[in-house]
């Protein structure tokens, strides 16, 4: 099954909002969570690499949406998006 980045990210955000946000933002602010968008399992880490590493170990073929708990995005960039959402199909 293939997902575009937008669909994958939307699905990850939806799972996070509905199942995990309240608990994780109270207990693990600033940490990183990788959400398996198929199984809805989550993997926590103090770095993005740790969270993704745990996720890949458990589900090597999984697709994960990464979130920094309590932040709008995982990273910031110093340039503007230019209105392009960078959406395309993968897998």
């Amino acid at each position, binding site marked *: 099954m293939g997902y575009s*980045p*937008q669909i*994958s*990210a*939307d699905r*990850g*955000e939806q799972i996070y909002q509905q199942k995990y946000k309240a608990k994780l933002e109270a207990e693990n602010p600033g940490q990183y969570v*990788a959400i398996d*968008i198929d199984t809805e399992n989550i993997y926590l880490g103090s770095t*993005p*690499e740790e969270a*993704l*590493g745990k*996720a*890949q170990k458990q589900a090597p073929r*999984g*697709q*994960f*949406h*990464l*979130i920094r708990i309590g*932040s*709008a*995005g*995982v*990273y*910031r*960039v*110093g*340039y*503007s*998006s230019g*209105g*392009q*959402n*960078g*959406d*395309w199909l*993968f*897998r």
Partner: protein
Amino acid sequence: MATGYFDSNGDPWLEIEISGPFSNPSKTQCLIDTGFTGFLSMPFLSAFPLGLILTGTMNIVFANGDIQPRLTCLGKAIFDGQTNVGVIVLEPQGNQVLLGMNFLRKFGMRLNVDPGESTVELLPSPIPTLPIQQPLVQPNMQELSTPPAPTEQQH
């Protein structure tokens, strides 16, 4: 100490090696971008020849406040004799590989950029240490753990 260089536009660059889990390292020129909080960012089409494997997505916050998803992969970066694995953000277009603050953090480097001298240096970041103060007289731990004897109250 590792050194980079300035291009004709005055932008600082550094050469590193990048590889995927099963590919050989490939020399890559990276633009040093201290406004980018991540590890590395590169155009999507550059990731295929390097053998990088997609892991999924993450949201990125842009300078104009937009929040947009980007594809991600885990990649290995080799620099100055060290190897570190980090999350690489894939951009749908562009032609530059950006090296961000998390790269410097992971490699324990501080950046010394001098546009006047046209030098770009990466130096080991000193680990801040607090001075350890030893007490002049070692306390007797048994005394400290023994509760004080009750004093008689006088009326």
